């Protein structure tokens, strides 16, 4: 029996292995396809969507009322940004996560106040 054959076979096997396991692992290593940088894309649509889901699924009537009022007061100072919306809320995301105050919106697991900030953006966009 020829040991070299086994080595070649091992190499061929390794190739097969890469092919078989490739679908699992190697996908992340393939060269980038020429496209625009997704990170450069505006995130507004995603934030608005999260805000809409929060209002629809996680916010009660009183919460919606509070956020609507807050959105109106923010709008009085000009266009509402995520930073401005976040700053208007009393608690920060790390505190929410520490307390387990998390919500599931559009699949994202967020601090409740993050979702509320997105809801403010959503309400502001509907009001503006």
């Amino acid at each position, binding site marked *: *029996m020829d040991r070299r054959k086994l080595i070649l076979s091992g190499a061929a096997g390794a190739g097969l*292995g890469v092919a078989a396991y490739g679908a*699992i692992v190697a996908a992340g290593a393939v060269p980038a396809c020429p496209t625009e940088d997704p990170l450069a894309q505006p995130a507004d649509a995603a934030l608005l969507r999260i805000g809409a889901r929060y209002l629809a699924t996680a916010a009660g009537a009183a919460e919606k009322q509070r956020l609507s009022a807050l959105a109106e007061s923010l709008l009085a100072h000009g266009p509402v940004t995520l930073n401005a919306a976040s700053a208007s809320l009393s608690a920060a995301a*790390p505190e929410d996560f520490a307390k387990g105050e998390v919500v599931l919106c559009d699949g994202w697991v967020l601090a409740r106040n993050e979702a509320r900030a997105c809801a403010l953006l959503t309400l502001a966009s509907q009001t503006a």
Partner: protein
Amino acid sequence: MAFDRFRDARTITDGTRLTADVCVVGAGAAGITITRALLRAGYRVCLLEAGGLSVDPAVDALAAVENVGIDYRPNDARMRLFGGTTNHWGGHCVPLNPIDLEARDWIDHSGWPFSFDELRPYYQAAHEVLGLGPFDYNAAEGAARIGARLFDFDGVNVATTMSLHNRVRFGLEFGDALNAARNLQCILYADVSSIDLANAESEVVRSVSVRSIAGNAFTVQARAFVIACGGIENARLLLASNQQRPAGLGNHADAVGRFFMEHIWYESGYIAPTPPLATYRHYAREVPYNDVRARFQIAIPPEKQRELRISAFRAELVEKPSAYWETWHVRHQGIDPSDIGVLLANPLKMGAALRCREHAAPDVFVLGNLIEQIPNPESRVTLSESRDPLGRPLARLNWRLSRQDHDCIFHAHEVIASEIGRRSVGRMRVTMHDRSELDLSGAAGASHHMGTTRMHIDPARGVTDAQGRVHFTRNLYVAGSSLFPTSGYANPTLTIVALALRTADALKRQLRRG
């Protein structure tokens, strides 16, 4: 150097009867490990390998599998040649955790017939076989050793695990020594067709009947036999050995072939990272570690598994474009009304994702989840009506997943997502749904075939005893991952080698007793 002492079954005269102390069927990780242990103890071993030294389609055809369960190609990653599937494995080694061997009241049919402590010395010995260095899987210490910075997970809800990689090709690594061993007969192209008892009432296996693709047949007689052909073929061979026991050998409890398990690989959920990304990338690729390589994963610790009542969960990270995931429904199920908004929100980005698929520029880390499948008796290997070229029944595989498998990933993701947020290293999106129906479309196996000849001390609930000896036989052993009652998330080869060393010890004790 040539393996000049290996024989070719195709040239053995029809009707020949060979003898040995132990006949080992299958020259993969398990079979070669047991063979080496027995040779060192001075026993005469006959090692039968169905394949040769290279891939041969004619040999592969003898082990074709009729798949009737979920979409799955069980033989894509299996190799029938000397060295078995180690000829192309990823070298991924990690031990089971102690909880994996426990009977867990939330997982039916869980519980190994011994504890982790029983396995520990064999894991240490397996480390030597696999050239892995010290038996140490402490992720924090391992990371410190190589200067890698890991996530500061709390270790209660989420933890980092470490695995080691060393791609030992058993045929290449040990072939020369086996070839030189005077007490070994290694026969290639020797496909065992049946295991034969001395008579129908006997518990003693007298011989195995061997065929080759040339059509000739011969037998091997021995004092003991070890079946180490892989998770599907082990079951097929026991079921097909039904001349004297109509249900097949070891099938007194209708357990042979049942409980087929895979490590379920399912890419789902992604993390939008907060830069810098260096820490993330430690979870996304192998890194040099001592003389081998290491990889880090995100896992749910044992106590959290108990609290959530889930099976073992581990995830590695895969850098991918988020838009590729956004378009999942469009690619797999047609446009759902809820997707229209997503597509319209950023048509250029979505268009690129559809066109380039996962080749688009990566911006998120997808979780490559690898979980322990819940043992399921309906997930099974049986004999097919179809025949192989030698006229023997093929294996018929019905791999089934369960709702508990789905829930394991979903609940693990909820916990991980909170921990990622709490650590302020990003935000995670859970892309599974907590709906009532099973939703694991796109799930694959890791080519780890397990459970089909499970160990159990009670013959009514298993195929073999705690040593791997088939119940109601005195001298027939099984080796390999088909013995696993449950699988944990650990890639199986390290445990296969450890168990093989343990079975070799049991065999030696039996042979010494005479």
